[in-house]
């Protein structure tokens, strides 16, 4: 049922996963190997994506069909690479300035509309439905509007925050804190879900159909740490922890 490539994959995945987790105990060569592999594999994945979704369809195919306009951005892109040659590195400015100009030109109106006007509209819109709102809804709408004003005032730098103004900006901080707290809580859940995903995979690979990949790799790691600890003595061990 389970063919060899899947079993081999299971062993590889279980191994790499445990190698990276082993860093939590202390830095070790296996983690370093996995980490360097990750660096290379990540770059490799991005490279194949850009070859298959940009270079071939967006540069190679148009050029071979005679659409030569794409050569301009390709040249601009190539100038970026002059960064590595100090004497010519000024050429890279042609590419950079194009990217910065395009990005800035796009960001300004988009920022004004989505983060600026829409947010004002979103804050005052509930009040237009006043007739159909319950007392709680009105309270909430007021809280959102008032809270947003206080937070904005906290970030207002042109006047000294003294007396009553100080109170306004203090209220702002508390709204910020609620938001940070909520973000903290959500992040906890998200990261744990990820960890659960990895553990669940490890559990899958620990089955007999994978020939107990997880257990074997884990046992090898433990053995390595025991032997390493035994031969290099206790002293280094204590120093290793905080570096982790």
């Amino acid at each position, binding site marked *: 049922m389970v063919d060899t490539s899947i079993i081999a994959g299971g062993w590889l995945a279980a191994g790499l996963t445990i190698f990276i987790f082993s860093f939590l105990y202390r830095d070790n060569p296996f983690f370093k190997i996995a980490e360097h592999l990750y660096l290379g594999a990540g770059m490799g994945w991005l490279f194949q994506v850009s070859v298959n*979704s940009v270079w071939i369809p967006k540069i190679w195919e148009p050029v071979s069909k005679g659409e030569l306009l794409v050569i301009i951005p390709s040249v601009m892109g190539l100038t970026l690479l002059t960064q590595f040659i100090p004497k010519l590195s000024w050429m890279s400015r042609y590419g950079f300035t194009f990217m910065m100009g395009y990005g800035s030109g796009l960001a300004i109106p988009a920022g004004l509309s989505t983060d600026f006007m829409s947010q004002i509209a979103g804050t005052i819109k509930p009040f237009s439905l006043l007739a159909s709102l319950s007392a709680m809804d009105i309270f909430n709408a007021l809280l959102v509007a008032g809270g947003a004003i206080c937070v904005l005032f906290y970030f207002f730098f042109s006047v000294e925050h003294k007396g009553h103004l100080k109170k306004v900006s203090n209220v702002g901080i508390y709204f910020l804190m609620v938001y940070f707290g909520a*973000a903290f809580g*959500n992040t*906890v859940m998200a990261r*744990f*879900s*990820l960890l*659960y995903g990895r553990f*669940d995979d490890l559990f899958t690979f620990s089955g007999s159909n994978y020939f107990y990949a997880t257990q074997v790799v884990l046992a090898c790691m433990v053995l390595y740490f025991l032997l390493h600890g035994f031969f290099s003595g206790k002293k280094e061990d204590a120093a290793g922890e905080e570096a982790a």
Partner: protein
Amino acid sequence: MKDTLQKFFKIDRRWIFLLLTVTLFVPIVKPIGLPNKSISQATTRVYQNIEKLPAGSFVLLSLDYDPSTRPELHPMAMALVRHAFAKNLRVGVVTYIAGSTGLIEELFARVGKEYNKTYGADYVILPYQPNILAVMTQMASDLFGIYTSDRNGAPIGGMPVLKGVKSYKDMSLIVCVTGTAILDYWVAYVGDKYSVPVAGGVTAISQPGYGPYLQTNQLKGLIGGMKGAAEYESLIKQPGKGTSGIDALNLAHLLVLILILTSNIILLFVKYF
């Protein structure tokens, strides 16, 4: 006394790591079996929107997540497909994230078999497209203008699953499962513009951001994070990875709270006694 407490405070953090490993791994091996109690309104709305569709309706799923958000989003997508298949709906799948193609194959290889569904008649998987906006706009008039074949190059023209489906007008619902901003695109460029119902499934981190859309009914429902996946699974009465996930997270969440409390109580103690 104080010194002992101080020492307790400066405990080697690897003990904490070990504690987390145990609290998270044990429930995977041996589930606690606490039922998911509450079901949020937003998740129920997604469920109802699928539940009310007559058999044979066409639902478009936009599955845009890669392995880094898989634990949260894959169970959701799976529950949605199960629900659609159980209701005998026709399902079309599109994606705008390069990394999701493998996950989609995996999902349908499994759920398709469970429900005895045939590829081409009951569901179709369309290829990855990098340019979201162009595709979304094109599908408003004629989806065959941009998709001529499925992800393996087979022509989709004669497939029964797409019979009578040409544009958004012929679709009953669009559900986008994603950890990116693609759901925003569906809402802004498709849902609002062509008045098709759009619902979504997102990660716990991005969930708070969609409150405004839900409030205005621009989104017909939202499944958020692993909790949402568990809720949906209990709605369709098919516990899966979401349910077992939330079960496993029980103890870990509690552990975090206990740790924060302990450290602060010790702190108070050291300070005032």
